[in-house]
């Protein structure tokens, strides 16, 4: 049986990883505002969860100025994609074993 991932298990972080891994690896990622609307998290909450995912090496964060406004873009790393896939497999196995 696959093992759970403590970092991804938290609901907001699970949503963040689901959104980011739905993109192709070569895509630029999702910006902060889009992630906020997808996850339903507040600014501070989302920022903290993204920091935790970045510390685990699961996401890459880039900051840039677009039309003089700061823009934060987040994309899933290769390790993040693999960890998310393992965690989803773990969840499916629980469901299958019930």
């Amino acid at each position, binding site marked *: 049986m696959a093992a759970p991932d403590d970092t991804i298990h938290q609901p907001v972080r699970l949503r963040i990883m689901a*959104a980011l891994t739905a*993109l192709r690896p070569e895509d630029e990622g999702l910006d902060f505002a889009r992630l906020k609307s997808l996850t339903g998290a507040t600014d501070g909450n989302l920022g903290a969860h993204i920091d935790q995912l970045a510390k685990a090496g699961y996401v890459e964060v880039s900051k840039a100025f677009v039309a003089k406004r700061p823009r934060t873009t987040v994309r899933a790393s290769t390790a993040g994609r693999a960890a998310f896939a393992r965690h989803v497999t773990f969840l499916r196995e629980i469901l299958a074993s019930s």
Partner: protein
Amino acid sequence: MTITPDEAGAMLADVDAIIAKVKLSRMYRRIGEITMLWGAIMLLEHLVGMAAPRWWPGIGEAGDALGVAATLLLLVRGRSDREVRIPLRLLGAFALFFAFGFLWSDLGRFGPRELSVFWPSLFLFGYALAGLWLGVAFTAFGVVFSGLLLAGYFWAGQAFDLWIALVSGGGFVLFGLWMRRA
């Protein structure tokens, strides 16, 4: 860590819902690009046609050919997507709409004024239909802008060409921009 089957099921449903939203958003983005492309082409065709009427219909035909080629390019680029599969079906819909349009613009013996309303309203009808699957905004766009085109046809008088340029070209560009951000 202990997770019950119910909790696992709820988490997986959450994951599936988020993935579906992202995919829909990416599809909106791609259709938005095509919509903006055709809006810009229609706007330019009409403005150049107003400035140099003797070049019409050559301008229109060249613009449409450019639009079809650029649409194909956008669709081919989209084919490298693993998850989003618009291309062949959308391409088929385009071909059918153009075939229907060319058939009836010939059989219908429309004048220039009727043709100017017919072509954009034909594609707006497609958006209105697509809205039944893709979201009410598509249907609203199709219906409202068709209404604006018809209003111009009946009441715009001398400003008809400018009205059509702004409503059809500008409308498609604005809706495409909205779709890219949706």
